[in-house]
C-alpha cells in the first residue's frame, strides 16, 4: 500500500524550515511561520498516531523500492508516540521562543534550525533503516551544535566544544557499528537485520556489534560513563534550546537503544547485565550531581542523567513489565523535562539568574504560576498520582520479578534524590524571600515590562505541557495502554517485520 | 584573423561530419586540410598574418619542447649524480612584455622550463624576478631569455 502519510511529520518541518530560510531576517514572520508549522506538525502527528493506534503498523517504502532494497519508513505505536510527544514539545517550545529567545538569535537562523532539529527527530523515530537513522542522527547533532553555539557566549562555546567532541565520537561508534553490521549481514533494513542477526551463528560478533551501538547511543543518551558532555553543556544555551535538548535529544538516544535492543539485538545475559549495571551507575551519578548543584539548570541536567538510568534499567531488565515502565517513564520524561527547562527560562526572565541562592519570593509574587510549576515539579518527582509515579510501579515490579535489587535500590535512591532536590528548589526559589543580591548585581525582571500577549506566549507553553503531564498522570490508563502495547510489540517483533518485509517472511 | 580561424574550424568540423569518423586525429587532419585550402584561397594581404602565425606557433611549441627536454635532462643528470654542480640565484629580468596577457604567458613558459622559475613580478610590471638553477652569468642568462622565449612569444602575439 502506498502510504505517504507517515512521512508528513518530517516534511512539514522541512518545508517550514525552507520557508523560514526565505524569511531570513523577518523575525515577526518567522515567529508566525514557526508556530504555524509546529501546530500543523502536531495535527499531523495526532492523525498519524490515531491511524497507527487504530489500524496497526504503517510503512512507506521510499522511492517505491520494496524493503530491504530501499529505505523503509515505519510508524508503529512506539515511533508515532515519539513523534506525537515531539510535536507537543515542538509547539510549546516554538511558542515559548517567540518571546523567550533574543531577537539576535532569530536573525541568525534560530527558527529554521529548530524545525530542522524537529525534522531530524521525527525522521529518526520513523525510519526503519539503520544507516538512514545515522543520517537523522547527524541532522540532529549538527542542528544541536548550531543551536548550542548560537549567540556565541563563552560558556556556550565551552559547552559546545565538549558536546561536539563527544557526540562526534558517538557518531563514529555508531558508524563503526553500521560497518560491522553491514559486513556480517549485507543489509541495512532494520527488519531485515532483525531476521539476519537472529539467524547468525556467531553470537560473539553480534555482542560486539551491540557494544558499539550501546556506546554510540549511550553517549547520546548520557549513560554512565559516557554522559560527561551533558552536564558540561546543558546549562549554557538559551532555555528554549535547553528545553528541546533536555526533553528530546537524550531521549532520541534512548529511543534508538530501545529500537536496536528490542528489534535487532535481543539482549542476552551479557547485555542485560551490562545495561543494568550502567543504569545503576547512571542513576547514582545523576543523583550525586543533582544534590550538590546550585544552578537550576545544572540541577536539571544531572536529573536528566539520573532519570536516563531509570529507562536504561528498564530496558536492561527486558521483561514486558520493565519495558512498559521504561516507556512510560520515557513519555512522561519528554513532557516534563521539556517543561522544566522552559520553567528555568521563565525564572531567568523573572529574575535574571538561575542561581538558587540569588533567587526567591516567586511564590509570593506569582502564586498561581508557582502552583502550575509546582505541579510540573511534583510530576517530575513522581508524586502520585502525577505522571512520574506510574512508571515506577512497573519498574519496581519488574525489579522484583527479575530480582534486580541493586537496580531497585538505585531507582529508589534516585527518586528520593529527585524529591529532595525539587523540594529544596521549591523552598529556595519559591518560598524563600528574594534575598539581597551582592554588590553590583541587581534584579532584572524582564517579564513585568512585557505586554499581556507576550507574557502569555511565555506562560501558555508551560501550562500546555503541564496540562499534558497532568493528563498523563490522571488518565494513566490511556498512556499505560499505549506503553503496554508497545512493550508487547517489542517482545514480539513479528508484526513489525511482516509490516516491513511482507507477510511471507518467517522469522 | 579570428574570421579565418573560425572558418578553419568550420572546415574541420565539416570534414569530420563528411567522413563520419569522430576522432581527434580525424579532426586534426580536417583542420590541416582546411588550413591548406584557406591558405591557397587567400588573396587578401591584411589577413595574411594568420598564415604566418600558425607555423610560428608550431615553431614556438617545438622550441619550447626542445628547451624543456634539454633542461630536464640536465637537471635529471645533476640529480642522479651524487655531486651538485648547480649555481642557483635570483635574477632581476627587465621585460619587454607589457600587457598582462604577455606577462602571464611569458612567465608560464619560463616557469615551465626546468631550471628557471618566476618568483614574482614587480608592482610596476616592469621586472620579473627569476630563480635560476644554473646561473653562470647574469647578463648572458638575460640575453638568452630575451632572444629565446620572449622574442618568439612576442612575435606570435603582436
Amino acid at each position, binding site marked *: 500500500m502506498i502510504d505517504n502519510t507517515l512521512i508528513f511529520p518530517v516534511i512539514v518541518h*522541512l518545508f517550514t524550515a525552507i520557508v523560514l530560510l526565505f524569511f531570513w531576517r523577518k523575525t515577526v514572520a518567522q515567529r508566525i511561520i514557526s508556530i504555524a508549522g509546529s501546530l500543523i506538525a502536531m495535527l499531523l502527528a495526532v492523525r498519524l498516531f490515531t491511524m497507527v493506534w487504530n489500524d496497526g503498523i504503517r510503512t512507506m517504502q521510499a*522511492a517505491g523500492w520494496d524493503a530491504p*532494497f530501499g529505505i523503509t519508513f515505519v510508524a508503529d505505536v512506539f515511533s508515532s508516540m515519539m513523534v506525537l510527544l515531539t510535536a507537543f514539545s515542538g509547539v510549546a517550545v516554538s511558542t515559548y521562543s517567540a518571546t523567550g529567545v*533574543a531577537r539576535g*538569535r532569530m536573525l*541568525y*537562523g534560530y527558527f529554521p534550525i529548530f524545525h*530542522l532539529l524537529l*525534522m*531530524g527527530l521525527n525522521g529518526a523515530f520513523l525510519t526503519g533503516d539503520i544507516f*538512514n537513522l545515522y*543520517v537523522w542522527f547527524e*541532522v540532529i547533532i*549538527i542542528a544541536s551544535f*548550531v543551536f548550542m553555539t*548560537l*549567540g*556565541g557566549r563563552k560558556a556556550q562555546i565551552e559547552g559546545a566544544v565538549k558536546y561536539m*567532541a*563527544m557526540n562526534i565520537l558517538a557518531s563514529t561508534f555508531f558508524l563503526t557499528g553500521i560497518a560491522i553490521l553491514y559486513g*556480517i549481514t*549485507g*543489509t*541495512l533494513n532494520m527488519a531485515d537485520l532483525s531476521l*539476519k542477526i537472529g539467524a547468525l551463528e*556467531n553470537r*560473539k560478533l553480534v555482542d*560486539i556489534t551491540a*557494544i558499539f551501538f550501546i556506546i554510540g547511543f549511550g*553517549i547520546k543518551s548520557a549513560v554512565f*560513563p*559516557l554522559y*560527561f558532555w551533558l*552536564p*558540561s553543556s546543558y546549562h549554557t544555551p*538559551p532555555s528554549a534550546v535547553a528545553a528541546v535538548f533536555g526533553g528530546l535529544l537524550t531521549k532520541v538516544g534512548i529511543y534508538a537503544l530501545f529500537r536496536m535492543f528490542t528489534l535487532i539485538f535481543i539482549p542476552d545475559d551479557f547485555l542485560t547485565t*551490562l545495561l543494568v549495571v550502567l543504569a545503576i551507575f547512571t542513576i547514582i*551519578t545523576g543523583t*550525586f*550531581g543533582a544534590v*550538590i548543584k546550585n544552578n537550576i539548570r545544572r540541577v536539571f541536567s544531572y536529573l536528566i542523567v539520573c532519570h536516563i538510568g531509570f529507562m536504561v534499567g528498564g530496558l536492561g531488565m527486558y521483561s514486558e513489565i520493565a519495558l512498559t515502565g521504561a516507556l512510560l517513564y520515557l513519555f512522561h520524561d519528554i513532557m516534563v523535562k521539556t517543561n522544566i527547562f522552559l520553567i528555568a527560562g521563565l525564572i*531567568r526572565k523573572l529574575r535574571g539568574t538561575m542561581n538558587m541562592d540569588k533567587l526567591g519570593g516567586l511564590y509570593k509574587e506569582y502564586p498561581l504560576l508557582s502552583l502550575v510549576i509546582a505541579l510540573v515539579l511534583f510530576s517530575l518527582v513522581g508524586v*502520585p*498520582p502525577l505522571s512520574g509515579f*506510574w512508571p*515506577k*510501579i512497573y519498574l*519496581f*515490579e519488574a525489579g*522484583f520479578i527479575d530480582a534486580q535489587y541493586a537496580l*531497585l535500590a538505585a531507582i*529508589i535512591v534516585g527518586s528520593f534524590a529527585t*524529591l529532595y532536590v525539587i*523540594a529544596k528548589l521549591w*523552598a529556595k526559589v519559591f518560598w524563600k524571600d528574594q534575598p539581597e543580591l551582592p554588590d553590583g548585581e541587581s534584579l*532584572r525582571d*524582564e517579564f513585568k515590562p512585557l505586554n499581556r500577549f507576550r507574557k502569555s506566549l511565555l506562560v501558555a507553553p508551560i501550562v500546555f505541557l503541564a496540562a499534558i503531564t497532568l493528563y498523563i498522570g490522571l488518565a*494513566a*490508563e490511556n498512556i*499505560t495502554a499505549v506503553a503496554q502495547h508497545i512493550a508487547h510489540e517489542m517482545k514480539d517483533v513479528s508484526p513489525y517485520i511482516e509490516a516491513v518485509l511482507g507477510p511471507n517472511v518467517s522469522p | 584573423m579570428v574570421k579565418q580561424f573560425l572558418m578553419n574550424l568550420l572546415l574541420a568540423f565539416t570534414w569530420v561530419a563528411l567522413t563520419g569518423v569522430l576522432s581527434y586525429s580525424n579532426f586534426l587532419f580536417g583542420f590541416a586540410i582546411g588550413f591548406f585550402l584557406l591558405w591557397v584561397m587567400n588573396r587578401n594581404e591584411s589577413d595574411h598574418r594568420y598564415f604566418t602565425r600558425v607555423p610560428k606557433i608550431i615553431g614556438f611549441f617545438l622550441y619550447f619542447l626542445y628547451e624543456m627536454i634539454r633542461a630536464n635532462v640536465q637537471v635529471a643528470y645533476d640529480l642522479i649524480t651524487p655531486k651538485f654542480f648547480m649555481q642557483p640565484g635570483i635574477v632581476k629580468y627587465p621585460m619587454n612584455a607589457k600587457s598582462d596577457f604577455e606577462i602571464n604567458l611569458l612567465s608560464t613558459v619560463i616557469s615551465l622550463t626546468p631550471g628557471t622559475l618566476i618568483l614574482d613580478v614587480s608592482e610596476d610590471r616592469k621586472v620579473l624576478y627569476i630563480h635560476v638553477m644554473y646561473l653562470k652569468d647574469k647578463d648572458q642568462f638575460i640575453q638568452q631569455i630575451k632572444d629565446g622565449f620572449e622574442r618568439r612569444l612576442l612575435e606570435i602575439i603582436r
Partner: protein
Amino acid sequence: MLFAILAGFIVSLLYIPFGRFLKGRLAVLASLLPIGLFTYFAAFIPDIQDGASIAFHQPWVPSLGINFDFQLDGLSLLFSLLITGIGSLVFLYAAAYLKGHPYLDRFYAYLSLFMAAMLGVVLADNVLLLFIFWELTSISSFFLIGFNNDNADSRKSALVALGVTGGGGFLLMAGLILMGHLSGSYSIQEMIATNEYLKGHALYGLILLLVFVGAFTKSAQFPFHFWLPGAMKAPTPISAYLHSATMVKAGVYLLARLYPVLGGTDYWTYPLIIIGGITMLYGAFHSIFRTDLKGILAYSTISALGILVFLIGIGTPQSLLAAAVFILVHALYKAALFLTTGVIDHETGTRDVTQLSGLRKVLFPLAIAGLLAALSSAGLPFTFGFIGKDLVYEATLHTDGILPLVLTGLAVVTNIFLLYAGLLAGLKPFAGRLPERYSAIHLPHALMWAPPLLLAILGIAFGAFPALADASLLNPAATAMINEAIDSPLKIWHGFNTVLLLSGITLALGVALYLARKPSAHGLAWIERFNPLSPKHLIASLTRAVHRFAIRYTRTLHNGFLRVYLLRIIIFAVLLLAFRLFSGGAIRLIPDQLSPVGIYEIAVVGILVAAIYLAVTSTSRLTAVVATSVIGYGMCLLFVFYSAPDLAMTQFTIDTLTVVLFVLVLFRLPSFLNLANRGTRIRDWLVASAFGAVIALIGIQVLNQPIDDTISKFYGDNAYVLAKGKNVVNVILVDFRGFDTMFEIVVLSIAAIGVFSLLKLRLKASEKE
C-alpha cells in the same frame, strides 16, 4: 464515597478562583466541608456496628489493577470520623486563629487537600491507591509545615519532614508493590486471602522491612522521629490536626490495616515491639525536658505513637483493642492540648512553660479543657485515658514468656513520663499565680476555646460512659484489624487486679514527679548535651557526609577536562570490547580468499601510515594539516584502486576543502605546545593502541563472515532497467537511498547556517537568552 473523598480535592481547587472571598467573616464556611463529611461518615455507624462493611468500586487504571476501590469498615470508620470530626473543629478554630491572615485561603486549600488525602488513605482498599493518598498527605503536610515560608526554620523543617516521610514513602511503595506482585493483586481484601502465602514467602522479611520503614517514618518512630518536633513550626491548628491526631497515625493505621495480611509472626512482632518500645520510652523521656509547650506535646505524641506501634506489635486481641482505644483517646486529648496551647501562644506570645502560670484566671474555659485533657492523658479513673492505659497494661501483661515483665515495666515508665508531660502541658500554664503581664488577656472568640473544650469533654465522656464508643466504633475497629470478633466490652472498672495496681503506681509516681520537678532551661540544656548522639544529628551528619562524598564524586568524575572524559569513554569501550572479544572462543585469522598486494598499494599504505605518524607527532599545526590531507589523498588512491571512483572524487574534493578551511583558521595560531608529560603520553598511547588493536581484531573477525550480496545484486540488476542510471552509486544516492542524500544536504545546510551565525552573530548585552 468517591465524591466524599474527592470533595476535599475539588474544594481545594475551588479555593484558587474563589479563595479570596473566604478570607473575612465567611472563613467559618470552610468548615462546612469537614462537618458535612463527618455527618456523612457518622451515618454509617449503625451499619458498621452491625458488622457490615461498605465497598465502593470505580475503575481508574485497570491495567495496573489500580482502581478507586474503597472499603469502609470499623477501622476506616474510626479514622474517618477522627479525621472529619477533629477536622471540623480545627477548621472552625483556624477561622478565628488565623483571622485576617493574608493567605487564609491557601491554608484552607491545603487543609482540605490534606483531609481528602487522609480520608483516601484510610478508606482505600487498594494498597497502591492507599499509597497515592499517603504521598499526598506528605505533600500537603510539606506545604502546611512550610506555611510560613518566609521563615528559614519553617522551610527547613518542611524539607526534613518531606525528606523523611518521602524517603520512607518510596520504600513503602516498593514494599506494597512487592506484596501486590506476590499476592497477585493490590486489593487488601485479596491480600488477606493470600496472607499465608505471603508470610511463607522468602521475601516476606523484605516486605516487612519496606513496609515498616514506610510506617515508621510516617508515624515518627525512632530513629525517624526527629522530623515531628520540627514540624511544630507549622501553625498550631495544623500541629493539632496533622501532627498529633491524624497524619502521624497513618503509619499506625497502615500497620493496623496490614495486620491481617502480614501480622502475627515473630518477624512482625519483635521489630514492632522493639521499635515501638524504644520510641515510646524515648519520646516520653524527652518530653519531660522540654520547656516549649509544643515541644512537650510533640515528644509525648512520639511516645504515644510508639505505644500504638508497640500494641500492634504485640498483636493480641487485647492489644489491638487497646490500640483502637488509645488512638481515640490520644487524638482527643492531644488535639485538645494543642488547641489550648495555640490559644496560649496566640494570647501570651510565648509557649515557654516556665513563663506560664495562672492563666485560668483569664482563660477559664481553656483551663477546663486543659485540665480535662491532662487528666485524660494522665489516665485518672473515669477518664477515657484511664481505660486506654488499663488496656495497655492488660495487653502487656498477657504476652508470653518473660516479656510481660519487661514490657509492662516499659509501659509503666513511659506512662509516668507521659503523665508528667500531660500535666505540664494541660495544668501547669493554668495553675498557680497569674503574672502581671498576662492580666490584661481577654478570652478569645468562642471558636478558639470551644473546640478544645469539646474535645476534652468528649475524652471524659467516653471515659465515664465507655459504651458510647465501644460497640459502635472501637470494637469494630479492632475487629477489622484482627479479622475476628472480639468479645470483651470496655469497662470502667475491672476490679482490683494487677492492672489497677500498675495504674495506681503510675499515677502516684507521675504526680510525684510533677510536683517534684519544675521544668527549666537547665534541664533542656542538659538533655541537649546528648544531641550529638541523637538520630537527628547522626542522620544529619550522615547526610553531610553523603553530600561531601557527592561533591567529591562529581568533581572527580566531571572535572572539566574533555580529554579525561574521552579517555574514560575509550577505556570503557576497550574493556567491554576486549572482554567480549576474548571471552569464549579463540580469534580466527583471515580465510584464504585475500586479494593480492601490489607494490604501489604497499607504497600508498606505507605513506598513509607515515602520514598518520606525522600528523600525530608534528609540532606545527600546518604540518599536521598537511599530513592529514596526505591521509585523505592516500585514502582517495585506495578508493581508486578498489573500484570507487565516486568516492575518490568526493574524498579528494572534500579533503582539499577541509585543508583550505583549516588553513583559513589556523594560519594565525602559534605552533603546538607540548602540554602532556611523558607518562600521560605513554598512557594515552597504550589506550589508543589497545583500541586500534581491538578494532583491527574485530575487523578480521568480520572478514571471516561471508557477505550476503542480495541487495547489491538487486541494485546492479535494476539500476539501469528500473532506475535508468548506469552509475550505480549515483543511482543509490539519488534513488534507492535518496533519502540519505536529501538529509545529508540538510546537514550541510545547517552547518553553513551555523558557521554563518557563529561568526556573525554578536548578541547585545541586553539579550540574555
